Structure formats: structure tokens, C-alpha cells
């Protein structure tokens, strides 16, 4: 019997070039707080934030903490990004209302599951709802499907968030990160 692949094995197999560029783009745009729940799609970004002495790398117990963390960071003049899987978005919804009504600038980068070619039915519901949930709370959605779109999208999102005061969700499609095989 073939050995089952873990999510981490899968992430290691896909190209990490754009993931490093993603981290560099976030840093270049002034992000100093990286919050996350461990996720294979964001593994490179998470690992780099842990090794980067210039930033705070904040492991969360649930994604919604990262929404509140970002709002607190803004009150103190810092830029925070929430890295999460699309399923984690479901844990954030009530706090997203604080972002909307407080007009907090807010950036999240979602690694999509339940999207293009998903093989785990448990991921489908939240994955397919992610864009609608974001739009229901007036978050601007920018989807990335190709490696060369990663950096320009992060630059565009950063301007919209920290210069125009918007809430932006960057969706990293499974067309970009690949669908995990089951």
C-alpha cells in the first residue's frame, strides 16, 4: 500500500519560489506582525516569520484572534497580516464586523481549500463560501491563480489596505498552490 502523504509533504512538493516572494512582498510593504494557525499552504511564510528577528510571529489558537490582533496592531501603528486557510475564515466572521464598522485597515491572505480540484469533501463547504463570506462583510477579494501574480497582488492589496483603509482578502487559489491528493 502506498504511504499516505501528509499536508506538509504536499506543500514541500509544490514550488516554494512564489511563497518566498510573498513573504518578501509583505515585509517590503511594512508588515511586522504575522499571525497564523499552522497551515501547509502558508508553510514558507510562517517559517520565515519565525526566523525573522525583525517581526512578531504569532501562532494563534483560532484564526479570529488574528483579526483582533490586527486591529490592535493598527491602534498602535503597526501592520499585521493574518495568514490562514479558507476554512479558518469561518472562525472569523463576527470579528470581521469589527473591521467593517471600525473601518480598520485589514489584510488577510487565504490559502484556498475546497476550491479547484479539491479531493476532501470536508473542505468544500467553507472553500466555496469563502468569497461570498468576504463580500458579505464588504471585504475586497483579490484572487491569485498564477505565480507571477503573487507579488503585484500583494503590492496592490497593501496599498488598498494601508493607504486607502480597506479590508482585503487575497485568495491563493488551488490553481496556484495545487490540490492535495487523497
Amino acid at each position, binding site marked *: 500500500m502506498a504511504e499516505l502523504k501528509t499536508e506538509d509533504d504536499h506543500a514541500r512538493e509544490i514550488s516554494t519560489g512564489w511563497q518566498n516572494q510573498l513573504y518578501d512582498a509583505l515585509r517590503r510593504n511594512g508588515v511586522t506582525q504575522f499571525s497564523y494557525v499552522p497551515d501547509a499552504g502558508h508553510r514558507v511564510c510562517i517559517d520565515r516569520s519565525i526566523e525573522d528577528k525583525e517581526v512578531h510571529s504569532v501562532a494563534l489558537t483560532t484564526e479570529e484572534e488574528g483579526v483582533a490582533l490586527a486591529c*490592535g496592531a493598527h491602534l498602535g501603528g503597526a501592520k499585521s497580516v493574518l495568514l490562514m486557510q479558507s476554512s479558518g475564515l469561518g472562525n472569523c466572521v463576527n470579528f470581521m464586523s*469589527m473591521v467593517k464598522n471600525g473601518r480598520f485597515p485589514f489584510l488577510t491572505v487565504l490559502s484556498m481549500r475546497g476550491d479547484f480540484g479539491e479531493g476532501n469533501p470536508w473542505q468544500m463547504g467553507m472553500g466555496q463560501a469563502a468569497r461570498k463570506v468576504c463580500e458579505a462583510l464588504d471585504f475586497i477579494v483579490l484572487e491569485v491563480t498564477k505565480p507571477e501574480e503573487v507579488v503585484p497582488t500583494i503590492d496592490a492589496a497593501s496599498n488598498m489596505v494601508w493607504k486607502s483603509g480597506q479590508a482585503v482578502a487575497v485568495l491563493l487559489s488551488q490553481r496556484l498552490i495545487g490540490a492535495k491528493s487523497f
Partner: protein
Amino acid sequence: MTATLERSAGPRYTLDRITAVPAIVGNASDFLVIAGLAGTAKDMAAMTRDGANYYGLAGAMGAAVSMGLGLALAQPDKKVLVATGDGELLMNIGALATAAVLNPPNLRILCVDNGHYGETGYQKSHTCLGVDLEQMAMGAGIKSTCSIEKEADLAKGAKMLRESNGTCFVLLRVKPTDGPKFKRALDPAAKRVQFRLGTLGEV
């Protein structure tokens, strides 16, 4: 202990928050303050006169500790006080674990525990039915913790909030009665602007 509908949290909950919270916080202008929704938001709004060093929630239940953590990491030279209630903290108790791992030395957490959900009509919370939030904070890994339930111990709690070298957690048990009457601004965007102007000098 079984739940009853009587509004009492038991013999350990006798302090009056109207006097106990100001006694333990002292001069609130020494802190940047994040307050969880309902009781503590009103306590701290009254103490700061809804000032620029105060951001109080009226929703987003469970957000206070994480918000205070983000602020504390962003402003390492200022003391950040998170004041919240037992119900608000229970909704996101994992935030204590996140704060403990980061352990910013300028983060202080004050939980005003009345054993009830005051805002919705004083239904009992888990804390007057056996849940001990100081022990949960200790279990999360917060090194400096204490529980205050007598007037004579208020000074000990006040000292920890001011002098702790790491993230600290002070549980203040109070009776389930209303806090100060104070009408605060409820526009979260206006308060965001006021706080940023006061803290950073810019919007």
C-alpha cells in the same frame, strides 16, 4: 455546584466593581486600555472619561485579549491594560495561550469576574459554577497571576498590574451588580481615529 436562577456568585464574590476596579487600576492614564464588551467597557470608559487612551468594545465578544496583544507588540514602550469580563474571556480563552507564548512584558490582563453575563440579564457564567480563570491563565503559561477577592488584597493586584516584568493576569472577583453609569461613544470608527490621534499623533 448546580446552577440556580438566584443572582449570586457565592461568598467569594463580594467586592463592588464601582470601587474595586478603580482601586486596582489606579490612574488609568498610565495605560493604553482595551476593554472587553459590556461591564468592563463601562468601568474603563468612566475611569478614562472615554479618553484617547481607551478603546472599548461593544461587540466582537472574545476580541479584547488579542486586540491588546496586537497593541502591546506594536507599542512596546507603553503599558497596555486589557480589562475584560469572565464571559468575554471565556469566549476566546485560547487567546491567553497565544499571549503567554509571546509574553510581551508590557501586557497586563485584568479580568473582572462577576460570575454572570451582566449585559444579557445576569445569567450565571461558568466561573460561578466551578471554572477558575486564574488557573486557566496559569495553565496557558502566564507566569504572573493572582486572584483578588478581598479589599485588603486590592493593593497586591494593583502592584502586579503596574510592576510585572512579563504578561500578567489578575482575576478580580466582584459581586454581580452594575458598574458606573456612563454614556460612552459607540462608534468604533470614531474611537479608532481618537485612539490613533492620541497614541500616534496621526490617523
